[in-house]
């Protein structure tokens, strides 16, 4: 994905993250808080499991027939006066959006939080490549903070969670948002409101993401707490809504179960402050809201994920962030280490599929397969199943040719497992290998991995006599 700064390898990032005590503390606080709030919210909901199943069902229904639902959606949206655009990949989406802005003589753009627009690298494209050359201003507080800082988000729900208030105050002073940085959170927020209000007032084009789109009616739904998405979709005369093709739901009534699931899963709220359900632009010129509503439908690798049942389920994701908060690996290393717009467990499975980056091949392996993510996913994506599937695809080189790990380390691992397998399927070779390993250990040569193990833990030595040897001499 083009939407972020160049990253070093996952391993280096993860190690750096573990050593960053500020980040580590912030991550633990954030994930504990969100997970705790989620827990409280769903404990109060005895039908939680039934709701998850319902949501899984609805998503399976729409994905199994996605072409039909896409056609329905675009017909309804266009009948309501929206312009629907189709983008095969991120670059095409950026070109389309830049074109829409250009056609509207839109020089000033504001945008609300949208991971899809980060996926396609919209801000950088607009700043560098578009003829107007003006970068859209992020208006979600966390996103604006990291835009000012030139960074990328570290968490789906709370993008600036890795920054202390003092760091933010310094940043605001540096970027002339405030004259003095006091680190008072209310004052910082008030300063942000003042500055961004000017941007809202002057913006020609508002760009938003889409949380859910309804095929039956051509409606897009944007949910939020801050009010910036309402600003972006009400004040400017042009609204561009950017969505992955998987965001569809079949019917308007289907919104009910997702509105119950998403806020609780993400932050424990029973509902966020605002939901805007938009079905085309206003009908009369003296109404409120934009004159033009555009919807950009983005593929960028999603259609390929439809092919197999095991990968299709990952398109059900509603971007709640619950899996991040539950993941014991994410809790330690945060979002930046993943080098992707989509971090954590869901990121580890969709990034290799969407981005095809060589670096992304590591992500499915950076997991202990504990399954906590599967437990919390509101749409019941079986992430461990996907991780195992991707691991197998990557190691065998099928299906993800660009991700096949051809390094020397990977080759020797392949040989090692072949040897292991040959040994383990014969009791005789197994016993011989164990005897060898026991001997080598006695002279200080450990099995592969012993060194890495010992860096932090004592390694249990081979028993002097194996269980089977002791069993045999018991005369049984």
């Amino acid at each position, binding site marked *: 994905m083009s939407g972020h700064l160049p990253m070093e390898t996952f391993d280096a990032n*993860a*190690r750096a993250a*573990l050593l960053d005590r500020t980040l580590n503390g912030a991550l633990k606080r954030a994930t504990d808080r969100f997970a705790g709030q989620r827990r409280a919210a769903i404990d109060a909901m005895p039908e939680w499991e039934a709701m998850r199943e319902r949501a899984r069902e609805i998503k399976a229904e729409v994905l199994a027939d996605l072409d039909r639902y896409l056609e329905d959606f675009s017909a309804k949206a266009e009948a309501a006066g929206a312009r629907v655009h189709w983008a095969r990949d991120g670059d095409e989406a950026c070109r389309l959006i830049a074109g829409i802005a250009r056609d509207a003589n839109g020089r000033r753009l504001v945008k609300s939080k949208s991971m899809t627009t980060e996926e396609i690298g919209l801000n950088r494209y607009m700043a560098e490549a578009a003829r107007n050359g003006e970068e859209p201003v992020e208006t979600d507080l966390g996103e604006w903070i990291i835009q000012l800082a030139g960074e990328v988000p570290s968490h789906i729900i709370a993008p600036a969670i890795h920054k202390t208030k003092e760091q933010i105050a310094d940043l605001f002073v540096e970027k002339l948002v405030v004259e003095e940085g006091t680190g008072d959170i209310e004052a910082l927020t008030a300063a942000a409101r003042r500055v961004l209000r000017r941007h809202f007032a002057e913006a020609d084009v508002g760009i938003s993401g889409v949380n859910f789109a309804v095929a039956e009616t051509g409606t897009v739904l944007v949910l939020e707490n801050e009010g910036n998405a309402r600003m972006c979709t009400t004040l400017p005369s042009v609204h561009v809504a950017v969505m992955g093709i998987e965001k569809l739901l079949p019917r308007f009534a289907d919104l009910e179960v997702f509105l119950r699931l998403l806020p609780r899963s993400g932050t424990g709220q029973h509902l966020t402050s605002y939901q805007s359900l938009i079905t085309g632009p206003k009908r009369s010129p003296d109404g409120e809201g934009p004159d033009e509503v555009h919807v950009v439908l983005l593929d960028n690798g999603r259609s390929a994920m439809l092919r197999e049942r095991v990968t299709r389920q990952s398109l059900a994701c509603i971007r709640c962030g619950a899996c991040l908060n539950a993941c*014991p*690996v994410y809790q*330690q290393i945060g979002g930046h280490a993943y080098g992707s717009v989509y971090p954590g467990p869901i990121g580890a499975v969709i990034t290799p599929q969407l981005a095809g980056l060589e670096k992304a091949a590591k992500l499915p*392996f*950076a*997991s*202990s*397969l*504990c*399954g*906590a993510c*599967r*437990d919390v996913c509101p749409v019941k994506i079986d992430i461990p199943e996907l991780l*195992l599937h*991707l*691991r*197998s*695809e*990557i*190691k*065998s080189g099928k299906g993800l040719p660009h991700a096949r790990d051809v390094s020397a380390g990977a080759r020797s*691992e*392949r040989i090692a*497992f*072949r040897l*292991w*397998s*040959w040994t*383990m*399927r*014969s*009791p005789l070779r*197994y016993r011989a290998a*164990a005897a060898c*390993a*026991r001997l080598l250990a006695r002279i200080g040569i450990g099995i*592969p*991995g012993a060194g*890495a*193990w010992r*860096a*932090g*833990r*004592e*390694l*249990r*030595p*081979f*028993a002097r*006599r*194996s*269980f*089977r040897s*002791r*069993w*045999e001499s018991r005369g*049984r």
Partner: protein
Amino acid sequence: MRVSLFVTCLVDQLWPAVGEATADVLERAGCEVLFDARQTCCGQPAYNAGHRVEARAVARHFLDVYEGVDAIVVPSGSCAAMTHHMAELFEDERDRERARSIAARTHDLASFLVHTLGAPDLGARFDGRVTWHDACHGLRELGLRAEPRRLLASVRGLELVEAQRSESCCGFGGTFSVKYPEISVAMVDRKLEELAELGVDAIVSGDASCLMQIGGRLARTGGGARAMHLAEVLAGR
């Protein structure tokens, strides 16, 4: 009843006492324990690492060894859970059927004691405070939660203390523990943070791999508690 003991490669080579304790416990519960010396491994390490062809060969050997056996008992939630993944490794429907059949006849120790044998009194005794670690595969794939606690509750002299983080992953995860050792250790440290506050004599689990991870870290950091397998506690007199 007759049960066939699959001790797991890890227990066989590194922790035979767990195997012996498992056999003791099953005998005390009235079973005749058989041990088929042809056994090796369930294939989990290769499967988890993405090497399915290699895992398949080892899984096939497992199926061959236990063909026709009524009950296989395993002192490991993750190895018992692995039998449920074996079917998907095979293309041939007959092999898949064999695998599904084996999975239905393979039981984690705690599950077997409670659900098949009705949690008989084992005459177990352990004087001390212990806390239970819910190993991930046993917990989430086999649904084991109440069973070990019930068994521990019947051990004379044992005081069971619940950890808030009992369900959090110890960080082993197979090759993950050596591919990402820093993250793995950070995970076990997070888990062990509350151990000192709980003041327990032992942390007990049903998976030797978790105990290697937890015990290995405790040995390095000098934590007071021991890492013990459920079988060892239940075999105690």
